[in-house]
């Protein structure tokens, strides 16, 4: 789909992926439909949408945690197979994931240092003695802004933000080239959210890894993502470079999402409301999936599933009203 101006070969390419969850005695739920995303080295791609839109499913498919029912995911050109319970092949060990709840992703009964040493040994295959592992652990902890002397402590001794730093350190232990971060800051305190977002942005800027940053918090995505991908009910409805999308969204859903974000500061008045709820993905509306909630819907929207329209190079919108924009003076 869209490519960075630099045109670098993508590190991670999700190509026309469908994910369907089977249901007993009923048609499967299509959680993701024909989604394509690329992530290049040194790039943060933000994936936003309401709960139930399929963004987490897409993230899990991207690292091979769920199987794509159609299409494929390529990492460094090679196909990422869903692995089930099999051991992750070495070529995929540099494709990693950060989860939402740091307490759930750390082992509560194993010391921090040991968990990180495990990750170094298993993730890189390095044969290290304890002293070497300890030095690497200390370096990792410092890289995520923690003191090296916490290695002997347990996860419960730390706040949510600190645990998320530890979880990020564990991902970094495998020396990843690409990271999928699924709502990494949503369960954290206000001040920790900014800390972790900055930490992730700093890691990407410093090490050149690629990141798919999944979040329902649009203001953070605006802040740290180079490109933004907006999902609605299984479909990618808009994607492109973050700044322009924010200033002039080409899809009514993106406009509604942005308008709903409350702005802090002087009393700003109530944010705009998008009527209705996200429909049940098991029974999606006909035509454009957004039409029942769309303020601009007209007859054709009920019938036609809009194809992606190239609004500008690298910027696509799935809306019948979207038109290519003529490049004008900035």
């Amino acid at each position, binding site marked *: 789909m869209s490519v960075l101006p630099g045109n670098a070969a993508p590190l991670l390419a999700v190509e026309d992926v469908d994910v369907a969850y089977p249901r007993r005695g009923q048609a499967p739920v299509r959680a993701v439909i024909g989604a394509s995303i690329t992530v290049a080295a040194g790039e943060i791609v933000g994936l936003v949408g*309401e*709960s*139930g839109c399929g963004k987490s499913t897409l993230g899990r498919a991207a690292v091979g945690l769920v199987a794509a029912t159609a299409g494929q995911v390529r990492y460094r050109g090679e196909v990422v197979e869903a692995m089930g319970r099999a051991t992750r092949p070495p070529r995929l060990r540099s494709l990693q994931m950060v989860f939402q709840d740091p307490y759930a992703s750390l082992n509560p009964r194993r010391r921090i240092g040991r968990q990180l040493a495990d990750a170094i040994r298993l993730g890189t295959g390095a044969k290290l003695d304890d002293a070497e592992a300890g030095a690497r652990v200390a370096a990792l902890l410092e890289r995520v*802004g923690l003191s090296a002397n916490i290695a002997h402590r347990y996860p419960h001794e*730390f*706040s*949510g*933000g*600190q645990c998320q730093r530890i979880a990020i350190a564990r991902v970094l232990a495998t020396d990843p080239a690409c990271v999928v971060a699924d709502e990494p800051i949503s369960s954290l*305190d*206000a*001040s*920790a*959210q*900014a*800390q972790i*977002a*900055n930490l992730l*942005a*700093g890691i990407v800027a410093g090490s050149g890894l690629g990141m798919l940053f999944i979040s*329902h*918090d*649009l*203001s*953070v995505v*605006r*802040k740290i993502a180079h490109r933004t991908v907006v999902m609605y009910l299984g479909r990618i409805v808009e994607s492109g470079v973050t*700044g322009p999308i924010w200033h002039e969204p080409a899809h009514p859903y993106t406009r*509604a*999402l942005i308008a*709903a*974000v*409350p*702005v*802090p*500061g*002087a*009393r*700003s*008045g*109530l*944010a*705009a*409301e*998008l009527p209705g*709820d*996200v429909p049940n993905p098991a029974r999606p509306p006909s035509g454009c999936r957004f039409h029942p909630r769309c303020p601009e819907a007209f007859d054709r929207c009920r019938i036609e599933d809009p194809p992606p329209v190239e609004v500008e190079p690298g910027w696509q919108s799935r809306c019948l009203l979207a038109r290519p924009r003529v490049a004008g003076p900035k």
Partner: protein
Amino acid sequence: MTRAPVLEVDNLTVALRTARGMRRAVDGVSFTIGEGEILGVAGESGSGKTITALSLLGLLPIGARTSGSVRFQGRELLGLSRKELREVRGKQVALVSQDPATSLHPLLRIDVQMTEHVRAHLGFSKEQARQRAIEMLDAVRIPDPESALLSHPHQFSGGMRQRIAIAMALACEPRLLVADEPTTALDVTVQAGILRLLDQLRRERGVSVMIITHDLGVMSTVSDQICVLYGGKVAEYGVTGSVLGQPRHPYTEGLMRSLPSASQAGSPMVPIQGAPPSLDTMPGGCAFHPRCIWARDSCRLVVPTLRVVEGGRWLACDIDPLHGREPDLAEVGEI
């Protein structure tokens, strides 16, 4: 403020029993809420915001010790018997909790859940209670309330469930609604609808609302007054627009600066360093001093007194950021 206070909290202190002895989770908190007014209570985990809310409802954990005063419509709530509390709770003071998935009973139909307390509190007949439930579901804009009553919670989306939870809380026509992170589990688009609903309730029904949230964006769109808690104490308390527009407490200031929308596009967010203290790691002096970019030696020793500054705002900081030096951001490091 001409509106009579519905709730007056004065010097409320709540000590909780922990493994290491009694610890003050709420320490001398005072605020008032007028009729039809929305007070926002902001704070991170461990700030005492939820314990404050629970103490209004007599729902504190066993072994908690309270002092100070919580007066609701002039009546002291602290020290009421369980029977007396039951009269107030759910009837005059109602709670909407964070997660509608857990505040509704998954196995009971909505009509059962929505009529039980109405019949118990108001002595309504079954049919009267059903009518009230329909009226309330309509007020929170649930489409087709009659068939909604015959449904189970799982048949609704998260936003709809939160509307139902609010309808349930409103069914006995309470004068005060305590909403603990009512939109945190919801999407922004749904959140906007719930906030509009709260705003409408206070305007049309004169319901007073105490809304607890760490989202300052939510806070500034709905609340009239804001009370920022840190380490169990009031850090800053006043009219929302002025407190968030021109914060005087370094903590409020730091929270505002850490928001993605606050800084320039392209420049990084400026988070407050460190993590909020827990009950066992509460620092001496000003509880915020280890994370404060303005902190002086005296902050380590002296607990700042809560004092009135201009515009009726309360402030618990001995250093006034407005008149001090520029904070040295480089000193605290990190991007």
